[in-house]
């Protein structure tokens, strides 16, 4: 964690993002695209296109890269990192590549092999 993300108030105390202290019950998503990005990442993992750990690894890397940029970084938006991680995990697992074999087809192929 770099000091780049930390700011201080008049009394010298580190300041939270407003949402940390003003309303702990505010909605999780601030925009519908955040909600859909969340649902998409979970859905693809639930249907075995990648493991949750794979997605989470990408998310950790994306956030870590942002933190290392310090003051020069884009303003914080958690779901931008989420989207970047989602794009990477989709790419690494070749979901959009020609000839991608999904979990259902993989299972089917395994059963088929078994018959012979």
């Amino acid at each position, binding site marked *: *964690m770099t000091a780049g*993300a*930390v*700011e201080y108030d008049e009394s010298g*105390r*580190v*300041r*939270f*993002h*407003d*949402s*940390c*202290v003003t309303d*702990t*019950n*505010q*909605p*999780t998503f*601030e*925009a*519908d*695209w955040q*909600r*859909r*990005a*969340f*649902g*998409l990442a*979970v*859905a*693809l*993992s*639930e*249907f075995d*296109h990648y493991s*949750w*750990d794979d997605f*989470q690894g990408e*998310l*950790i890397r994306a*956030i*870590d890269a942002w*933190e290392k940029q310090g003051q020069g970084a*884009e*303003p*914080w*938006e*958690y*779901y*931008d990192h989420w*989207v970047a991680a*989602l*794009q990477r995990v*989709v790419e690494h697992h070749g*979901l*959009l590549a020609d000839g*991608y074999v*999904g979990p259902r087809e993989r299972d089917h192929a395994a059963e088929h092999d078994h018959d012979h």
Partner: protein
Amino acid sequence: MTEQFDYPADRESASAAKVHALEALLIEKGIILPTTVDKVLGYFESEMTPLNGQKIVAKAWVDPDFAALLAKDAPAAIAQLDLPDGMAGAEGEHIAAVVNEPGVHNLVICTLCSCFPWPVLGLPPYWYKDPVFRARAAREPRAVLTELGVPLTDDTEVRIWDSSGHSRWFVVPSRPEGTDGWSEEELAALVTTESMIGVAVVEPPAVAVGSGA
């Protein structure tokens, strides 16, 4: 502080466009159906909510055997309760409970990303993912807890639990005074999400005027 958290409108619409395009491509390729994302979101939003955590905490307050098992093997304890199917799915398989007791206050954070026990607490509040909250809570938890209104005495030990892919912690807060003889349902209603993250305590029921100090 504003600059670090300003979020220009064009960046917002660019992010929205990226997500929309990705979902459309996945549908076009036949990887998902047009209904898939809504179905998953619907399940999360209706079944994986803090109501599950509230029931677990209330049970632990009235049943010492359950409380002991919860601390030792949370998934086994949770399996005994009549909670929604799929509690073991997404982020549920590594749930672990830590129990507040006199002189010990537990606080859950995730310094890496924002691991969270969705099945028992629902989705994390916005601030849980905030980099400043994550950094400060790890570095100066007592100051953070005091600012958030958690009463700590000098000899209260604060234990920090950093959630990860392997353990997603939630806190069993202390049962408030003035609740003797209460039913599990009545007790569950007192339990807040914040108390199960450890950024709050469960307040005693407001029975008498002037009871809140």
